[in-house]
């Protein structure tokens, strides 16, 4: 066998074809002839957008697909074993959890909720090599220490729900290392994690790989993660390999238009240095490879008077417990938040999960529940203290674009009905006017007006998000709150939707409150950035100031943790201890400290700690 890599490959895949059973005994092929090699100590990334067949490939390698509904053909050789020729019993005895192990995307659901972490670790240790209970326990503690879980011996008897997402992924990694595997398959292992946690997990994987000398197959959609982790990269598109080479080659000189398009749509942190205003993503034609560079936003925000002004916003939730369900603690979700948004301006609210950014978005339109106080002024109207009817009228002016477009579209309503409904509900005009407006907006968001008769499930994820944008625009709002609106989208789709939002802002002068954890996207779209940590703003200022001269340690840490799609930075190691738990639950007697902000440069404020 000819072998492109210097070391002998541990895993050799040749002409792998995977098909799923379709209707009437037909087979739909989803992977068309994939070949790759992974050598010991090497990391190969399998990159692609959703539907590219990358996860199916990784499951096929472990033969975890249901044999009744799937067919795997070709050849997969791992450490001298032809996996497709092995019986299921041999897979269990020799391969799974032995020579090859796997970690998954969702650490929150990948651990069994009703067994302790220790049980599950010990099970992984003992199911292949019988050992005494005390020895197994010791080995489990050693593994937990190896993946740097603090206080390992005590935490062994905790249940998964007592661990944060990052800690659970560490447990998964510990489990995968239990048998000192030859190959570790990581299927989007950091996608569901916060950036700082993602950075920690990636560093950990790198260290452990060096220590164990195992081969790693890294399945991901995130070009930043690829650049940071992989020696070689395989790019997949709809079941085909479109490009393959060293990561350096693929990033520096992509040969295929698709790879170029993919790389162009990846927001790279720092790529906005020197750009004065938000910049559209470059558009690359996938068929021809012709590139159109992104144009900057032409319309400038009007800083003469604020459009939306938030003062001392506080949102707290009571935690009840005990026999009489009394208040026992309080979640300080949002503490003393103040900011303003101007017409045609985008203010980004960034932070990690649990920092209160989404609650802020909902508190502004008074949908947060809990107890909120403070002041939210829209133009001259104070929203807090409005009665229900007037608040409803005011909500017209502030619309939301949700994170999950499918969940927020009623599956039993056509798109036309969904778009027309808010317009009629607010008595903005007759039905014919509503239809005409819906058709015009469909055109504006890049969809055909004929699609109004379709149902939500007939659209792709990116199209659905366009629909939600169109629905928000139906009421001619002044402000749109976009809560993680592009986070769930594939990179190329994400770039298109960001471009669309910028187009809309340019045309209508709408203001955006752009809530996101994705700093690279935020850098592209926003005029100003507010960084939130534990319910408070720690730093707020013009985009260039915050990104280029971050002053608060948390901002620096957040920016530092982002994986940059640049293979040259691969060998940089982060030297940060695992982050502390972000827990805004406080005692009832807790009085939030009063904060002072320092103005470093005009408009750039940082909290004084």
């Amino acid at each position, binding site marked *: 066998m000819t072998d492109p890599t210097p070391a002998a490959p541990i895993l050799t895949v040749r002409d792998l074809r995977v098909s799923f059973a379709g209707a009437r005994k037909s087979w739909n092929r989803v992977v068309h002839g994939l070949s790759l090699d992974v050598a010991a100590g090497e990391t190969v990334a399998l990159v692609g957008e959703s539907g590219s067949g990358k996860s199916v490939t990784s499951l096929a390698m*472990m033969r975890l697909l249901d044999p009744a509904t799937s067919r795997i053909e070709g050849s997969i050789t791992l450490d001298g074993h032809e996996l497709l020729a092995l019986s299921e019993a041999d897979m*269990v005895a020799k391969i799974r959890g032995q020579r090859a192990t796997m970690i*998954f995307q969702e650490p929150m659901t*990948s*651990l069994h*909720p*009703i067994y302790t972490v220790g049980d599950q670790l010990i099970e992984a240790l003992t199911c292949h090599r019988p050992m005494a209970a005390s020895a197994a326990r010791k080995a489990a503690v050693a593994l937990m220490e190896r993946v740097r879980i603090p206080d390992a011996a005590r935490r062994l008897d905790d249940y998964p*729900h007592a661990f944060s997402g990052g800690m659970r992924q560490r447990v*998964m990694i510990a489990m995968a290392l239990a048998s000192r595997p030859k190959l570790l398959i990581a299927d989007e292992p950091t996608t569901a994690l916060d950036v700082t946690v993602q950075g920690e997990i990636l560093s950990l994987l790198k260290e452990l790989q060096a220590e164990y000398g195992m081969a790693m197959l890294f399945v991901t959609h995130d070009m930043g993660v690829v650049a940071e982790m992989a020696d070689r990269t395989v790019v997949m598109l709809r079941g085909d390999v479109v490009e393959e080479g060293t990561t350096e080659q693929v990033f520096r000189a992509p040969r295929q238009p698709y790879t170029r398009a993919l790389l162009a749509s990846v927001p790279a942190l720092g790529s906005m240095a020197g750009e004065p205003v938000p910049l559209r993503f470059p558009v690359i034609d996938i068929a021809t490879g012709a590139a159109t560079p992104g144009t900057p936003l032409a319309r400038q925000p009007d800083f003469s008077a604020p459009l939306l002004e938030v003062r001392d916003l506080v949102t707290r939730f009571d935690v009840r417990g005990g026999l009489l369900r009394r208040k026992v603690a309080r979640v300080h979700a949002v503490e003393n938040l103040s900011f303003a948004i101007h017409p045609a301006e985008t203010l980004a609210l960034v932070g990690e999960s649990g920092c209160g950014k989404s609650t802020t978005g909902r508190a502004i339109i008074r949908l947060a529940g809990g107890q909120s106080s403070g002041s939210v002024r829209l133009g001259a109207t104070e929203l807090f203290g409005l009665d229900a009817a007037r608040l409803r009228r005011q909500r017209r002016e502030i619309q939301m674009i949700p994170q999950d477009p499918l969940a927020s579209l009623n599956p039993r309503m056509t798109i036309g009905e969904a778009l027309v409904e808010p317009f009629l509900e607010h008595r903005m005009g007759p039905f014919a006017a509503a239809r005409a407006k819906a058709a015009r907006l469909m055109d504006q968001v890049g969809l055909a007006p004929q699609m109004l008769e379709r149902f939500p499930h007939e659209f792709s994820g990116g199209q659905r998000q366009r629909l939600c944008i169109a629905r928000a625009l139906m009421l001619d709002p002044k402000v749109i709150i976009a809560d993680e609106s592009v986070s769930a989208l594939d990179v190329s789709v994400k770039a298109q939707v960001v471009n669309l939002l910028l187009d809309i802002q340019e045309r209508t002068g709408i203001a955006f409150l752009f809530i996101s954890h994705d700093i690279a996207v935020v850098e592209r779209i926003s005029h100003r950035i507010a960084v939130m940590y534990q319910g408070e703003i720690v730093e707020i200022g013009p985009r260039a100031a915050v990104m280029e001269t971050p002053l608060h340690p948390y901002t620096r840490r957040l920016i530092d943790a982002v994986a940059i799609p640049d293979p040259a930075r691969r060998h940089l190691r982060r030297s940060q201890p695992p982050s502390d738990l972000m827990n805004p639950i406080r005692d009832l007697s807790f009085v939030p400290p009063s904060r002072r902000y320092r103005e470093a440069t005009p408009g750039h404020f940082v909290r004084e700690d």
Partner: protein
Amino acid sequence: MLAAMLSRLARMVVVMLGISILTFLIFFATPGADPAARIAGRNAAPETVAAVRHDFGLDQPIWVQYGAMMRKMFITGDLTSFVNRGEKIVPTLRAAAPVTLSLVAGAAVLWMALGALTGILAAATRGRWPDKMLMGLSMMAVAMPVFWVGEMVNLITQSRLHNTWAFSWVPPLGYVPFTESPLRWALALVFPWLTLAFLYIGLYGRMLRTGIIETYQEDYIRTARAKGLTARRVLLKHATRSAIIPVVIMFGMDFGVLVGGAAVLTEVVFGLNGVGRLTYQALKVLDLPMIMASVLYASFFVVLANAIVDLLCILIDPRMRRK
């Protein structure tokens, strides 16, 4: 834990109080159901009805009657039937309870064991013939009315084939107290148990099968398989334990309701003088004290069984511990 149990107990008392008041009110608020006229019999003279009304205390305000009844039921224990004046309610109920308990508890053991087996086997062989056969059988079990199955069983074991080697050991219909002879107690109950359990084996088997198959979609099952666990271990340790929780909750409901009297059809068919039969007879003659006592007894078991099931669920699923 203690707080949870105490609040459980408090809730139980509240539920029982509510049920007793409701039952009492229904009895008096139902139009045309003057209890005095009922007791006095058809075509009784107005004077007789008035005498009966006074005699039974029915001319006193409702809350006084309610209080008196509760006192007689729980404190003095000398509540007597309105219809059959000599009959003391509490001892009658106390005599009927073990019959029903024996019947339902034995059947419950059977249906939990066989139902779990059915569900696990069917899930393990999903889509293949053992699954199809078991699911067909359990559909039949659910579809056949219990009194019909009971009568058929009686027809075979008591009459047609009674004198063959197969069924000659079957004792005549009726109940034998456990204290009298454990063996004869068990023999007399074998067919009632099987008949009552039959329906629930089908029901629980189907439910568990669906639960296990759904659990197989969970990420943690994929993790367990990727770890290299054998198919059997994944099925029994990882899938079944999660899937059994709704079955256990269901069991709590069913067990409580059956002990409370819902096993009446089985009791009647097999000539067992249990609580269900007692309640049914009391309802026929609108015997308020008897209805009251048996309804309270039933609600007690429903709430108790639910409390036990809650504790069981906490044992199975640690996530329910933090509240």
